């Protein structure tokens, strides 16, 4: 035992050089400062009210307690939060946003990447504007505009998930368009030409050639647009008033600002909101990192 240990220490001492030591120290610093907040979020969600409200922080919860989750989901809990509604609302918004944005972007990107038409540059510049304009600038006129249209056509602007999906398209379509156009340009033109010589129309080419060849790009674009809608805060904050219509981010903000602070409940809700996104990302990391640098996510 002791010789083995000596060997290990001796081995370690031989391996460690100054550059290696500095490298390892910086790496460990990065990993702890990144992982600790995530650990703190998940572990806090399993604490009891006593553990959370004590004089000293509890670094490791004594047991996995579901008190916080009970408050979120159990109708018999005195401070039941109806969080299931918020999860469903978020899904009701992010899934349609992602599907609509991807479908529209497939056609739009194809036209930009492959076809010649007047006004292409003007359109591309218009799309780039969204990168320049702050969300807070666009939301004032959007709010006024939609209130006016809603008044004429007889729908409510507030607490209307459809309206929210519509406004999210403004944030997701430019991203989707940009990423897909870049991808379509990498598909060799010859394959499409061959399909056209075989008698396919342009639409058939898109359906039979371009889409099947772009599956990885389509997956990453749909996940990005999904993530943008899933995380969106400002527009939802302005457009939603009713607690049962809230998306998760707004609901978490509301729980946090409750007069009786319940950090474990906030952390439980945050865990529920974060884990699927991080897992989704890890599962598809290979496809996704490229999109991150391609100007994928504005934020």
């Amino acid at each position: 035992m002791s010789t083995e240990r000596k060997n290990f220490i001796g081995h370690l001492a031989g391996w460690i050089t100054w550059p290696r030591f500095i490298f390892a120290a910086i790496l460990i610093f990065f990993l702890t400062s990144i992982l600790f907040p995530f650990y703190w979020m998940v572990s806090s969600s399993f604490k009891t009210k006593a553990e959370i409200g004590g004089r000293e922080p509890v670094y490791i919860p004594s047991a996995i307690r579901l008190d916080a989750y009970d408050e979120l989901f159990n109708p018999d809990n005195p401070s039941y939060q109806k969080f299931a509604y918020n999860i469903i609302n978020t899904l009701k918004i992010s899934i349609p946003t992602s599907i609509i944005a991807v479908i529209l972007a497939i056609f739009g990107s194809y036209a930009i990447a492959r076809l010649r038409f007047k006004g292409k540059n003007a359109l591309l510049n218009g799309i780039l504007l969204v990168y320049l304009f702050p969300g807070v600038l666009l939301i004032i006129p959007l709010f006024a505009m939609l209130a006016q249209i809603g008044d004429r056509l007889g729908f409510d602007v507030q607490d209307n998930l459809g309206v929210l999906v519509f406004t999210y398209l403004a944030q997701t379509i430019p991203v989707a368009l940009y990423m897909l156009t870049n991808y379509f340009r990498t598909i060799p033109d010859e394959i499409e030409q061959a399909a056209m010589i075989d008698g396919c129309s342009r639409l058939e080419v898109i359906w039979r050639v371009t889409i099947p060849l772009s599956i990885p790009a389509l997956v990453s674009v749909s996940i990005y647009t999904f993530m943008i809608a899933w995380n969106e805060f400002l527009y939802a904050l302005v457009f939603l008033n009713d607690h049962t219509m809230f998306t998760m981010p707004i609901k978490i903000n509301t729980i946090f600002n409750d007069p009786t602070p319940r950090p474990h409940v906030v952390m439980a809700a945050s865990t529920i909101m974060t884990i699927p996104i991080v897992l989704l990302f890890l599962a598809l990391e290979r496809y996704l990192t490229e999109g991150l640098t391609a100007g994928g996510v504005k934020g």
Partner: protein
Amino acid sequence: MSLLTKQRWNSSRAREARLAWSLISPTALIVFGLIIFPAIFSIWVSFHDVGLNNLNDVFNAPFVGFENYVKVFNDFAFKFQFGQSWGAAVTSVVYSLASTTLTIIVGLIASLLLNRPFRGRGLARAIFLFPYVAPIVSIAFVWKWILDPRPSGVLNDILLRLGLIDAPQAYLATRGLALVLVILIQAWRYFPFAMLMILARLQAIDNTLYEAAEVDGANAIQKFIHITLAELRYVLGAIFLLRLMWTFNKFDDIYLLTGGGFGTRVLPVLTYQFSFQMFDFGRGAATAMILLTILMAFMVVYIALVMRKVEE
């Protein structure tokens, strides 16, 4: 239809353009209706008196000239008052410049770290991306909970144990410190973006450059400055511009972390407060236009400087 126009109508060029427009028209409509038109409309709003009372009849809102702008300039939340408060404009500029610079520095360190092979590098790279991928709401509240002013806050506990502070501090409710922390959290959250872009460029640097420098007897620091940084010049410039733009426009992070209090009120937060807490949309739009003007002025100067350097 005359033969000539018919020919033109049927020419492959024209057919292609028609197909292109039919493919892109839904997108174009959305881009115009939800981005371009609102952007122009917000200029209009900034010159009119628009509140909750006339929101349903916004096109008949009274014209007030520059009154909204004057109100913003004279607002204590906007004005720079020496020794008292920086005001939203100066805070915005300081906040964006500082957090962008810090984001790039941290991103550069992280990318150099991940550029050398070691066991578990793939996993480390995935973990490094977590802060950027996770929802801002969760991130903001975890940090708020870590920085909690009670003695049970993690940072308070650690610093008390180390004997660095005597009493628990309200970090995010202390003028100055709050701004510094918000900047640090920005760098923590957004460095992965810089890291990925730098990493892609680092991997494209020709190794023979380093070998040649070694032959010439260059040390590690010289190699870093004259090869690595020189090769990264353009990508660093691009990241700086993009991140600066996005940080300058950013609302969520500061709103969630401090609510814009304690010397962290930036222009987007002020815009939100004017528009959706005071419901003075005209004043909000005026603030947003000021924000945009500062941003554009900066970009013009930056691009002019960079272009001149490129020409040299």
